[in-house]
């Protein structure tokens, strides 16, 4: 199987964004989405952990605090498998451009940081499809923590890795846990060929880079939309194409 290192053959394209919490990847992905939609590209958006199949189970388990690193990992894989078959593959088959906010790499980073065997979690996701572009928004812990605290004021239990018992203080725990996650992402950058974006930069600077990479990497797929968008510009010198 091992599809994560094989190019897929669907007519659509898959772009994924990764990064630790507070890296700003969702902001970047949604700006990318707006741009692509404005070009007329059929965009399909999907997020980590959103299928109805395991939503209630995950919620319940998180509440009762009985998840172990392995069950945590397996539930996310179940959710992912469900989303892959219903939300990712169908639009790819239909030729759409799928943007996934987090992908299997989130599991590799988080689950390994929780102590699950790195080889096991990779084999678990062997059914996943290799993305056409994988962005990694790299940011130091203190920056992401500052962003999260100012936006939400309260760190979530599992996001902060409180289940790991690294520290009683949520902020300290977040730092300890997320730095492990960060190490895993850095390790994967080369393994999976991420496009690394310096996520400390201003939002618009990052977005310019992101769009340039997408235009370059998906040139063939985007060409008809880009051409149409250019020709649709209301320029006075425009001459109608003769039939």
């Amino acid at each position, binding site marked *: 199987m091992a599809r994560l290192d094989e190019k897929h053959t669907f007519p659509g394209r898959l772009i994924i964004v990764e990064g630790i919490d507070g890296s700003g990847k969702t902001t970047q992905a949604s700006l990318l989405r707006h741009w692509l939609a404005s070009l007329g590209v059929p965009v399909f958006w999907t997020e980590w952990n959103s299928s109805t199949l395991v939503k209630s189970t995950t919620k319940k388990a998180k509440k009762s605090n009985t998840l172990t690193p392995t069950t945590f990992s397996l539930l996310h894989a179940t959710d992912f498998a469900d989303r892959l078959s219903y939300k990712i593959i169908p639009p790819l088959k239909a030729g759409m451009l799928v943007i996934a906010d987090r992908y299997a790499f989130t599991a590799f980073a988080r689950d390994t940081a929780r102590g699950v*065997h790195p080889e096991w979690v990779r084999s678990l996701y062997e059914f996943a499809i290799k993305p056409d572009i994988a962005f990694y928004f790299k940011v130091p812990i203190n920056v992401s923590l500052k962003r999260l605290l100012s936006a939400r004021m309260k760190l979530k239990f599992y996001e902060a890795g409180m289940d790991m018992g690294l520290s009683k203080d949520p902020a300290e725990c977040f730092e300890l846990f997320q730095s492990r996650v960060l190490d895993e992402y850095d390790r994967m950058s080369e393994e999976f060929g991420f496009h690394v974006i310096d996520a400390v930069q201003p939002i618009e600077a990052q977005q310019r880079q992101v769009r340039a990479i997408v235009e370059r990497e998906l040139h063939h797929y985007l060409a008809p939309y880009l051409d149409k968008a250019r020709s649709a510009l209301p320029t006075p010198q425009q001459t109608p194409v003769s039939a």
Partner: protein
Amino acid sequence: MGRRYVGTGLTYVDLSEVNGHLIVLEGSDGVGRTTQLSLLRTWLEVQGYGVIETGWTRSALVRDSIDLAKAGNSLNVLTFNLLYATDYADRLEHEIIPALRSGFIVLADRYIYTAFARAMVRGADPNWIRNLYGFALEPDLVLYLQVDVDTLINRVLRADSLDYWEAGLDHNPGLDPYDSFQRYQARMIREFDRMAEEMHFTVIDARKGVEEIQQDLREAIAHVLNLSPEKPVAEVEER
């Protein structure tokens, strides 16, 4: 005897004091596992052993999701296998390992081999499914109740009507339940037989009567526990 994992294992769980005994009973749907297990439990308890039973798909964690998915028949091969693995992982860490650590005998009604057989019949990648259960604990003994499909059908029909999932109707849509049961269970038996050879299960002829099967099971277990097996009355008198 040292405890081992099937594959990569649970890297964060120390197995050094996980003693006890893990005994697995495998075999087709309706072959009589439940009856045999309750007889075994009583027998072991009379011998003074602490016994805990564990099933397949019973944990509180994923019961809802599995029921939900089964009701809507919306499971595909991947989610089906992943939910069962989640269920097993939950029971392994919260039930099986703690029980073994406390010196219990854990009697497992089905184990990862059921998952392997079901996955193979449904066309899952064999390497993927084996790796998936790489965190599983290797049992001390796997007792396989082996039966042919015709004997099985008769036994099942005498007890109850055919069940949608046991008949494998999820992957034989449109087929008559009887035909589907026969085809599905025959393929399951083939998978079990193949594994029995590969992984050295203790094969018990389940075409026999309940008492005879029980006797065979007790002998196999007594051997693992270093118990002197109780001879059946008839055999003792003959000598």
